[in-house]
Protein backbone atom coordinates (compact mmCIF):
# COMPACT_ATOMS: atom_id res chain seq x y z
CA UNK A 1 0.00 0.00 0.00
CA UNK A 2 0.98 3.62 -0.39
CA UNK A 3 1.44 5.93 2.59
CA UNK A 4 2.26 9.61 2.73
CA UNK A 5 4.95 10.49 5.26
CA UNK A 6 5.55 14.11 6.31
CA UNK A 7 8.63 15.24 8.21
CA UNK A 8 9.08 18.24 10.48
CA UNK A 9 11.95 19.95 12.29
CA UNK A 10 14.91 17.69 13.12
CA UNK A 11 13.37 14.71 11.30
CA UNK A 12 12.86 16.83 8.16
CA UNK A 13 16.49 17.83 8.18
CA UNK A 14 17.76 14.31 8.84
CA UNK A 15 15.48 12.80 6.16
CA UNK A 16 16.44 15.60 3.75
CA UNK A 17 12.81 16.03 2.68
CA UNK A 18 9.48 17.38 3.89
CA UNK A 19 7.37 14.50 2.63
CA UNK A 20 7.38 11.37 0.54
CA UNK A 21 5.04 8.71 -0.78
CA UNK A 22 6.11 5.29 0.44
CA UNK A 23 5.13 1.92 -0.99
CA UNK A 24 5.25 -0.46 1.95
CA UNK A 25 3.92 -3.64 3.48
CA UNK A 26 4.54 -2.40 7.04
CA UNK A 27 1.33 -2.26 9.05
CA UNK A 28 1.86 0.06 12.02
CA UNK A 29 3.47 3.45 12.73
CA UNK A 30 5.90 1.67 15.08
CA UNK A 31 7.16 -0.63 12.30
CA UNK A 32 7.31 2.29 9.91
CA UNK A 33 9.40 4.42 12.24
CA UNK A 34 11.83 1.57 12.88
CA UNK A 35 12.44 1.21 9.14
CA UNK A 36 12.69 4.95 8.41
CA UNK A 37 14.92 5.57 11.43
CA UNK A 38 17.35 3.05 10.02
CA UNK A 39 17.12 4.45 6.48
CA UNK A 40 17.68 8.08 7.48
CA UNK A 41 19.72 7.48 10.66
CA UNK A 42 17.25 9.41 12.79
CA UNK A 43 18.81 10.27 16.14
CA UNK A 44 15.51 10.39 18.04
CA UNK A 45 14.25 7.12 19.51
CA UNK A 46 10.60 6.19 19.09
CA UNK A 47 10.09 6.69 22.82
CA UNK A 48 10.85 10.40 22.36
CA UNK A 49 8.20 10.83 19.66
CA UNK A 50 4.48 10.92 19.21
CA UNK A 51 2.78 9.93 15.99
CA UNK A 52 -0.14 11.37 14.06
CA UNK A 53 -2.20 9.64 11.39
CA UNK A 54 -4.38 11.79 9.13
CA UNK A 55 -3.68 14.87 11.28
CA UNK A 56 -4.76 13.35 14.58
CA UNK A 57 -2.67 11.82 17.38
CA UNK A 58 -2.50 8.04 17.02
CA UNK A 59 -1.45 4.92 18.80
CA UNK A 60 1.85 3.40 17.63
CA UNK A 61 0.13 0.01 17.18
CA UNK A 62 -2.70 1.29 14.98
CA UNK A 63 -3.16 -0.64 11.72
CA UNK A 64 -2.40 1.67 8.82
CA UNK A 65 -4.57 1.84 5.71
CA UNK A 66 -3.69 2.73 2.14
CA UNK A 67 -3.52 6.48 1.66
CA UNK A 68 -2.94 7.30 5.33
CA UNK A 69 -0.79 10.35 6.06
CA UNK A 70 1.72 9.69 8.85
CA UNK A 71 3.66 12.32 10.79
CA UNK A 72 6.26 11.53 13.45
CA UNK A 73 6.28 14.27 16.06
CA UNK A 74 9.60 15.15 17.73
CA UNK A 75 9.63 16.67 21.24
CA UNK A 76 7.76 19.96 20.92
CA UNK A 77 9.06 23.40 21.92
CA UNK A 78 6.36 26.00 21.35
CA UNK A 79 6.05 29.18 23.32
Amino acid at each position, binding site marked *: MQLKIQY*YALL*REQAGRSEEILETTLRTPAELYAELAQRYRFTLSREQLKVAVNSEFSDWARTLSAGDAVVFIP*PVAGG
Partner: protein
Amino acid sequence: MRFRFTSTPIDIIAGQRELKDLGAGGFVSFEGWVRDLNEGLEVTRLEYEAFQELALKEGERIVAEALRRFPVKHALCIHRVGNLDLGELAVWVAVSSAHRGEAFDACRFIIDEVKHRVPIWKKEHYRNGDSGWVNCERCAAAPEHAHGDAHSGAHS
Protein backbone atom coordinates in the same frame (compact mmCIF):
# COMPACT_ATOMS: atom_id res chain seq x y z
CA MET B 1 -10.30 30.37 15.60
CA ARG B 2 -9.19 30.91 19.18
CA PHE B 3 -5.75 29.44 18.43
CA ARG B 4 -3.91 30.51 15.33
CA PHE B 5 -0.57 31.04 13.64
CA THR B 6 0.89 34.05 11.93
CA SER B 7 4.08 34.50 9.94
CA THR B 8 3.97 38.27 10.49
CA PRO B 9 4.19 40.23 13.78
CA ILE B 10 1.32 39.48 16.17
CA ASP B 11 -1.23 42.31 16.24
CA ILE B 12 -2.04 42.47 19.94
CA ILE B 13 -4.32 45.51 19.55
CA ALA B 14 -6.55 43.58 17.15
CA GLY B 15 -6.33 40.58 19.49
CA GLN B 16 -7.44 42.62 22.48
CA ARG B 17 -10.39 43.89 20.50
CA GLU B 18 -11.58 40.29 20.01
CA LEU B 19 -11.63 39.79 23.78
CA LYS B 20 -13.68 42.88 24.58
CA ASP B 21 -16.77 42.12 26.63
CA LEU B 22 -18.89 44.47 28.73
CA GLY B 23 -19.07 41.72 31.34
CA ALA B 24 -15.29 41.55 31.60
CA GLY B 25 -13.66 43.54 34.36
CA GLY B 26 -10.23 42.03 33.90
CA PHE B 27 -7.84 41.26 31.06
CA VAL B 28 -4.66 39.19 31.42
CA SER B 29 -2.12 38.44 28.71
CA PHE B 30 1.14 36.54 28.49
CA GLU B 31 3.81 37.44 25.96
CA GLY B 32 6.62 35.02 25.11
CA TRP B 33 9.65 36.91 23.77
CA VAL B 34 12.73 35.66 21.94
CA ARG B 35 15.54 35.61 24.52
CA ASP B 36 19.27 36.01 23.83
CA LEU B 37 20.42 33.16 26.06
CA ASN B 38 19.39 29.53 26.44
CA GLU B 39 21.18 26.97 28.58
CA GLY B 40 24.36 29.01 28.52
CA LEU B 41 24.45 29.57 24.75
CA GLU B 42 24.09 32.99 23.18
CA VAL B 43 21.12 32.92 20.82
CA THR B 44 21.03 35.22 17.77
CA ARG B 45 17.69 34.26 16.20
CA LEU B 46 14.97 31.58 16.16
CA GLU B 47 12.91 29.62 13.67
CA TYR B 48 9.50 28.23 14.59
CA GLU B 49 7.97 25.44 12.56
CA ALA B 50 4.54 23.87 13.13
CA PHE B 51 2.58 20.86 11.94
CA GLN B 52 -0.27 23.25 11.39
CA GLU B 53 -3.17 20.87 10.62
CA LEU B 54 -2.78 19.13 13.98
CA ALA B 55 -1.44 22.15 15.89
CA LEU B 56 -4.54 24.19 15.10
CA LYS B 57 -6.80 21.39 16.35
CA GLU B 58 -4.78 20.81 19.52
CA GLY B 59 -4.47 24.54 20.22
CA GLU B 60 -8.20 25.00 19.81
CA ARG B 61 -8.82 22.07 22.18
CA ILE B 62 -6.58 23.72 24.81
CA VAL B 63 -8.45 27.04 24.61
CA ALA B 64 -11.78 25.18 24.78
CA GLU B 65 -10.54 23.30 27.88
CA ALA B 66 -9.52 26.58 29.50
CA LEU B 67 -12.97 28.04 28.85
CA ARG B 68 -14.56 24.93 30.43
CA ARG B 69 -12.27 24.83 33.48
CA PHE B 70 -12.23 28.53 34.36
CA PRO B 71 -15.21 30.91 34.41
CA VAL B 72 -13.71 33.39 31.93
CA LYS B 73 -15.34 35.27 29.06
CA HIS B 74 -12.93 34.86 26.15
CA ALA B 75 -9.48 33.47 25.41
CA LEU B 76 -7.12 33.65 22.47
CA CYS B 77 -3.65 32.36 21.62
CA ILE B 78 -1.59 33.49 18.63
CA HIS B 79 1.78 31.88 17.83
CA ARG B 80 4.41 33.02 15.35
CA VAL B 81 6.00 30.72 12.78
CA GLY B 82 9.06 31.38 10.63
CA ASN B 83 12.15 33.42 11.45
CA LEU B 84 12.21 35.63 14.53
CA ASP B 85 14.80 38.08 15.82
CA LEU B 86 15.76 38.66 19.44
CA GLY B 87 13.11 40.52 21.41
CA GLU B 88 10.28 39.64 19.02
CA LEU B 89 6.95 38.44 20.31
CA ALA B 90 6.77 34.69 19.70
CA VAL B 91 3.49 33.81 21.39
CA TRP B 92 0.61 35.82 22.83
CA VAL B 93 -2.06 34.43 25.15
CA ALA B 94 -4.91 36.61 26.36
CA VAL B 95 -7.97 36.11 28.52
CA SER B 96 -10.81 38.40 29.50
CA SER B 97 -12.94 37.68 32.53
CA ALA B 98 -15.34 39.18 35.05
CA HIS B 99 -12.63 38.97 37.74
CA ARG B 100 -8.84 38.81 37.62
CA GLY B 101 -8.17 35.54 39.47
CA GLU B 102 -9.60 33.18 36.90
CA ALA B 103 -8.09 35.25 34.08
CA PHE B 104 -4.58 34.70 35.49
CA ASP B 105 -5.33 30.99 36.00
CA ALA B 106 -6.70 30.47 32.49
CA CYS B 107 -3.82 32.36 30.88
CA ARG B 108 -1.27 30.25 32.77
CA PHE B 109 -3.11 27.05 31.87
CA ILE B 110 -3.15 27.89 28.16
CA ILE B 111 0.54 28.76 27.81
CA ASP B 112 1.61 25.74 29.87
CA GLU B 113 -0.51 23.33 27.81
CA VAL B 114 0.54 24.90 24.49
CA LYS B 115 4.20 24.41 25.39
CA HIS B 116 3.65 20.73 26.18
CA ARG B 117 1.06 19.60 23.65
CA VAL B 118 1.04 21.59 20.42
CA PRO B 119 3.33 20.34 17.61
CA ILE B 120 5.53 23.42 17.26
CA TRP B 121 9.31 23.24 17.04
CA LYS B 122 11.92 25.88 17.77
CA LYS B 123 15.35 26.00 16.18
CA GLU B 124 17.88 28.23 17.89
CA HIS B 125 20.78 29.79 16.04
CA TYR B 126 23.76 30.56 18.24
CA ARG B 127 26.48 33.22 18.26
CA ASN B 128 29.10 30.48 17.80
CA GLY B 129 27.58 29.52 14.42
CA ASP B 130 25.94 26.36 15.71
CA SER B 131 22.20 25.69 15.74
CA GLY B 132 19.84 23.20 17.25
CA TRP B 133 16.22 22.11 17.67
CA VAL B 134 15.22 22.76 21.27
CA ASN B 135 14.43 19.54 23.23
CA CYS B 136 15.60 17.39 20.29
CA GLU B 137 19.35 17.71 20.01
CA ARG B 138 20.88 17.13 23.41
CA CYS B 139 18.75 14.11 24.13
CA ALA B 140 19.55 12.56 20.74
CA ALA B 141 21.38 9.26 20.70
CA ALA B 142 24.04 10.04 18.08
CA PRO B 143 25.71 13.37 18.76
CA GLU B 144 27.54 13.46 15.42
CA HIS B 145 24.17 14.14 13.78
CA ALA B 146 22.92 16.58 16.33
CA HIS B 147 24.30 19.72 14.76
CA GLY B 148 26.16 18.72 11.60
CA ASP B 149 23.03 18.10 9.54
CA ALA B 150 21.12 20.96 11.02
CA HIS B 151 22.24 23.54 8.49
CA SER B 152 21.04 21.85 5.34
CA GLY B 153 17.28 21.99 4.91
CA ALA B 154 16.12 24.64 7.32
CA HIS B 155 13.81 26.60 5.05
CA SER B 156 12.04 23.96 2.95
